[in-house]
């Protein structure tokens, strides 16, 4: 390990030595490559973020203008029951939906990679396509499918003399949302894992097959362990996605406006504060607070996962 680092570390220095010998002094190459990205990042991402952080320190009222309030907005947000309930709700969502979604993605990826499947390319594309559907369209689709009167599942249940599944009721809502999110992202994660599987050298399989291992055993002992880094990647992005949940509740708000209230998830709450209540400052504070929660949860998840893998 040290050998490689020793090789890599002085690269920049060797270059500058050579430059001094030639008498020229150019910009260090590392920063030159990252500069375009970082400059844009600074201007288009950090600047608005910074500005938003700045305005989160103020309060703007419809009557009375703008006043500086320091960290008041943050203190209010931390104690705000709507924020707390929202965070708990997305936490619950994360704990239920993400393992199921990743498990399904893993199973499907393994199935695709196993070679046991006919029409694999077709299946691969079909499960991925939902990711490409814009949520504007998805809301129309799911509005129909979840419909308690004329939706197909409702009609099927009526035909079989069973009670209509209450997809849009309060008790089922989180599950219905989880269904939509999984529908959208199982394919995305599946492809990520599938591609990682494709990179495993196949002599490993040959050796295992020679030893008498069947497809299941190969999957368990070779494929899954090698997938650990890929699973970490999907896990982190799933944390971010679940805690920032916004599109799907907004989509269902049209169809079930009395179950999905304006503070259903913290991100939705921030949106409502900014656009409906004209409370842009408080909305910014809530957004940053949520960001902080996500950072904490992400690191917690990564630490736990890494500790588990070390055992």
């Amino acid at each position, binding site marked *: 390990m040290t050998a490689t680092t020793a090789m*890599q570390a002085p690269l920049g220095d060797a*270059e500058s030595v050579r430059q001094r010998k030639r008498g020229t002094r150019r910009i*260090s*190459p*590392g*920063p030159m*490559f*990252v500069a375009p*990205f970082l400059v844009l*990042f600074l201007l*288009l*991402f950090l600047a*608005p973020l910074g*500005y*938003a952080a700045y305005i989160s320190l103020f309060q703007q009222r419809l009557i009375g203008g703008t006043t500086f309030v320091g960290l008041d907005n943050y203190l209010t947000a931390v104690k705000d029951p709507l924020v707390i309930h929202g965070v708990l709700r997305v936490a619950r969502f994360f704990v239920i939906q993400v393992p199921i979604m990743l498990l399904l993605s893993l199973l499907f990826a393994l*199935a695709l990679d196993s*070679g*046991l*499947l006919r*029409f694999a390319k*077709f*299946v691969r*594309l*079909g*499960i991925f*396509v*939902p990711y490409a559907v*814009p*949520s*504007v369209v998805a809301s*129309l*689709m*799911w509005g*129909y499918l979840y419909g308690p009167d004329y*939706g197909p599942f409702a009609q099927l249940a009526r035909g079989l003399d069973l009670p209509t599944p209450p997809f849009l009721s309060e008790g089922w809502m989180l599950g219905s949302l989880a269904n939509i999110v999984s529908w959208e992202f*199982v*394919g995305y994660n599946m*492809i*990520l894992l599938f*591609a*990682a599987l*494709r*990179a*495993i050298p*196949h*002599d490993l*399989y040959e050796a295992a*097959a020679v030893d008498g291992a069947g497809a299941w055993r190969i999957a368990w002992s070779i494929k899954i362990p090698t997938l650990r880094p890929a699973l*970490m990647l999907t896990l982190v992005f799933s944390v971010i996605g679940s805690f920032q949940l*916004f599109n799907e509740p907004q989509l269902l708000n049209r169809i079930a406006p009395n179950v999905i209230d304006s503070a259903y998830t913290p991100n939705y709450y921030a*949106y409502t504060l900014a656009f409906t209540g004209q409370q*842009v400052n408080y909305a*910014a504070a809530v*957004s*940053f607070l*949520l*960001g902080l929660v*996500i*950072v904490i949860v*992400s690191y917690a998840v990564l630490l736990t996962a890494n500790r588990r893998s070390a055992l």
Partner: protein
Amino acid sequence: MTVIPSKAPESPRRKLDQRRSTPLTIVMLAVLAYFLLPLFWLAIASTKNTGDLFSTFGLWFSDAPQLLTNVKDTFARDDGVFARWLLNTAIYAGVSALGAAMLAAAAGYGFAKFRFRGSGAWFNLVLGAIMVPTTALAIPTYLLFAKVGLVNTPWAVILPSLISPFGLYLMRIYAQDAVDDSLIEAARLDGAGELRIFTTIALRLLAPGLVTVVLFTLVATWNNYFLPLIMLNDPNLYPVTVGLSSWAAQALNGGAGANSDMLGLVMTGSLLSILPLIVAFLMLQRYWQSGLAAGGVKQ
């Protein structure tokens, strides 16, 4: 160890390939049917006229399917603005995807192959920044953009989409794995400049990962709805997502000016807007797998 991902060589697998499992196939086809169900509904809905939309069974055709008429109407509506929207989307998504991939490739290469002060901090900052939800921050972003006169221009949509933290993460890992240090050293000794090394050697090796970032950014920008909604006022600049939602608003909300006939067009338009993405996937599938492989296997 450098892992240069490639397509799976066929020979060692033929032994496993030969035994196809029918039960597994059936299960996966059932899974596929579930995933395609909503899209199937959309396809069926696009063949109906507005009257039939709500009076016939959703998952099967009406008596008088009129897909071609609907498609024609969709393109003819509002002086052909739908075609304009598709074109806008293609431009925004295309430019953003290519630009984002290039920037991420350069930055990923820079982070992977060079050590410089603060590189770790910068890298973590980028990843940390995406953890703050930007939905409510759209207004401050708008105000900032308005100050520099960017609002209501295509740049308001393209510029923010040029930053892909996921792309950066991927490209860095990919650069570490796919671009051999010895190659770079050899080129340096030959007297090649850093930029030359990057463009002639590294990019070629990074190509599969590059295409991956292009693809994922393409989808993300194609489906981008919230940002263009806030930044754009002129319907001629809308991407197809915002355009369709404005039609949907006209069809679905009450009040004067509501025109329920638009609903059929919204359905058909939605279907049409997904097709280019599917085509893009099919074409880029090959590179796609290889690119993601490195991102997955190495940390």
